[in-house]
């Protein structure tokens, strides 16, 4: 198991290098630079040139790239041009928002997606199955942002039950956090819940047909144990892969959701950074987000091996 993790971590290094290269290339390819944003609209060309010189942006790109890598290897992501704050600090402040939102949405996705998928499989072709699948189709086909706006209008504006936006830190006011995050989390979770429900249903149907399920029933095990132990343990193997993808999608979906609900998360931070060509912020932010995604995928691989003894023994 240790070896599996080590090899996955090692293979993450080239991914991080590649992603940072692509990010660097793209952010420098788009026209404009941070100087204009810093100096303001009335800046003269001299002022711009001076700022560029001070920031080292007049150096050739390979030199800039080298400097950035050098910094990162020394554990320093640099300073945000716009905020004047260390990039790592800016990220650490925003991360809990994105993390909380994604986690909340993940809990909703897992709770509703898994249970309705299992239930639909067990009640295949009954009204339970049909209702669950109709809802999942609606969840999948309704655009996130559209749903978010509908929910804001209905729950926040018309009914006034929940705030339409803004953030309350969890540790200051847990209930306030729940209130602020519920609409964003639901709008973020809806599509993925529908997706997970459908995949869980079809995977469970496939597993329930297997011979070992018949064996479990032939032993006289209670239905609960047949389904929740024997079937689910096998169904979880492919489902965990999907959950890994879902987590990645949650993190990237959080960007849009944060913007709509004005939540000060990584998504908002990066959007601002890109718009203002805050190079260090973009570079550092993307690196951290990529590392998170890679981490999630390593976790999925570990879970995968934990769930499937055939993989476990093959790998060791």
């Amino acid at each position, binding site marked *: 198991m240790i070896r599996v993790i080590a090899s996955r971590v090692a293979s993450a290094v080239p991914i991080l290098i590649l992603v940072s290269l692509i990010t660097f290339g793209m952010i420098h390819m788009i026209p404009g630079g941070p100087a204009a944003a810093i100096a303001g609209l009335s800046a003269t060309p001299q002022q711009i040139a001076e700022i560029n010189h001070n920031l080292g942006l007049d150096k050739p790109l390979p030199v800039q790239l080298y400097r950035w890598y050098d910094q990162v290897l020394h554990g320093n992501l640099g300073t945000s041009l716009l905020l004047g704050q260390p990039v790592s600090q800016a990220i650490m402040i925003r991360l809990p928002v994105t993390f909380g939102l994604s986690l909340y949405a993940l809990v909703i996705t897992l709770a509703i997606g898994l249970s309705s998928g299992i239930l639909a499989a067990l009640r295949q072709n009954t009204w339970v199955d049909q209702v669950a699948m109709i809802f999942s189709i609606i969840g999948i086909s309704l655009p996130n942002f559209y749903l978010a706006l509908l929910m804001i209008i209905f729950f926040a504006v018309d009914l006034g039950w929940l705030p339409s936006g803004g953030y309350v830190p969890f540790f200051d006011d847990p209930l306030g956090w729940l209130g602020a995050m519920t609409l964003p989390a639901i709008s973020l979770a809806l599509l993925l819940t529908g997706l997970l429900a459908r995949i869980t249903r079809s995977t469970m149907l496939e597993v329930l047909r297997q011979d070992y399920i*018949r064996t479990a029933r032939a032993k*006289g095990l209670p239905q609960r144990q047949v389904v929740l132990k024997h079937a689910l343990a096998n169904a979880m193997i492919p489902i965990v892969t999907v959950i890994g993808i879902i987590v990645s999608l949650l993190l990237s979906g959080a960007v849009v959701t944060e913007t709509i609900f004005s939540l000060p998360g990584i998504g908002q931070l990066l959007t601002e950074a890109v718009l203002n060509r805050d190079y260090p912020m973009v570079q550092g932010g993307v690196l951290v987000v990529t590392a998170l995604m890679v981490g999630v995928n390593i976790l999925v691989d570990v879970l995968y091996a934990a769930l499937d*003894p055939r993989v476990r*023994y093959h790998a060791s």
Partner: protein
Amino acid sequence: MSLLEVAGLTTTFATERGEIAAVEEVNFSLEAGEVLGVVGESGSGKSVTALTVMGLLPRPPARIAAGSVRFAGQELTSLSDREMRRIRGPGIAMVFQEPMTSLNPVFTIGEQIIETIRAHERAGAAAGFARTVELLEKVGIPSAAERMSAYPHQLSGGQRQRVMLAIALACRPRLLIADEPTTALDVTIQAQILDLLLDLRDEFGMALIVITHNIGVIAETADRVLVMYAGRIVEEAPVAGIFDRPAHPYTRALLASAPALDAPLAAGHLPAIPGTLPDPRHRPPGCRFAPRCELAIPACSAALPPLTAVGPGHAASCIRLGA
């Protein structure tokens, strides 16, 4: 009262092209400790009969259209799922045709046996473990205590079938149904498993139903034999009667195409009888074997031949019995 009494059993499947009867008007009974052999070509309804008794067919598409299954005096067909699960294990246990896929790949074999015991009895962890090791030893798994933590994929087909046997025996069933327990295994293993089955039958004092399409297997194991064809029983006899005085032309054809009886296992699969089993959707009128039967006359296709006694405990459904 017999241990198992199956009467007028008809099991059907709903398919896209209508309902088909996989098993039709099957009658038989079994005494405690008796060994019943069930033979017939692939598709003749042997597994469906066994799975109906176990209540393991998915309903729908399966349906018990008629008949009854009484086990130790209790009607099984009308039991709820919850009541039926108490029968499975300590009452009736089954070993399946597919050893490679019948064990759950993600649990250790020890776990899969212990949970069977736990589902029916209060057994502490230590007692459950000890009993499981003992079971594994009984079915001939070497270094049983160590193998407890093995996963199915680490075992050979023969070993997996032995583990299946250990699971089936875990709650000392009164009836064990072995559905072609050896078909998927190679020849030397087949003989070992069959011997094991008979030894265990003696030790546990249970009744045994051995399903096979190799009539040779029956000669060595069964007290009584049912011959099935296209969902119906065509002959029923004590084992000696089947081999000495086979009455139904189908039984004779099975015997003729069977491997030599003194080496029943060595030849592997049964060479085919000319022709094929009729499609369950378009079964011939009258005797279902008539289209393949050398002795068939027009009257054979007129009506289903009734089961007629030809000796003590020996009956066959054929109108050409003297021919």
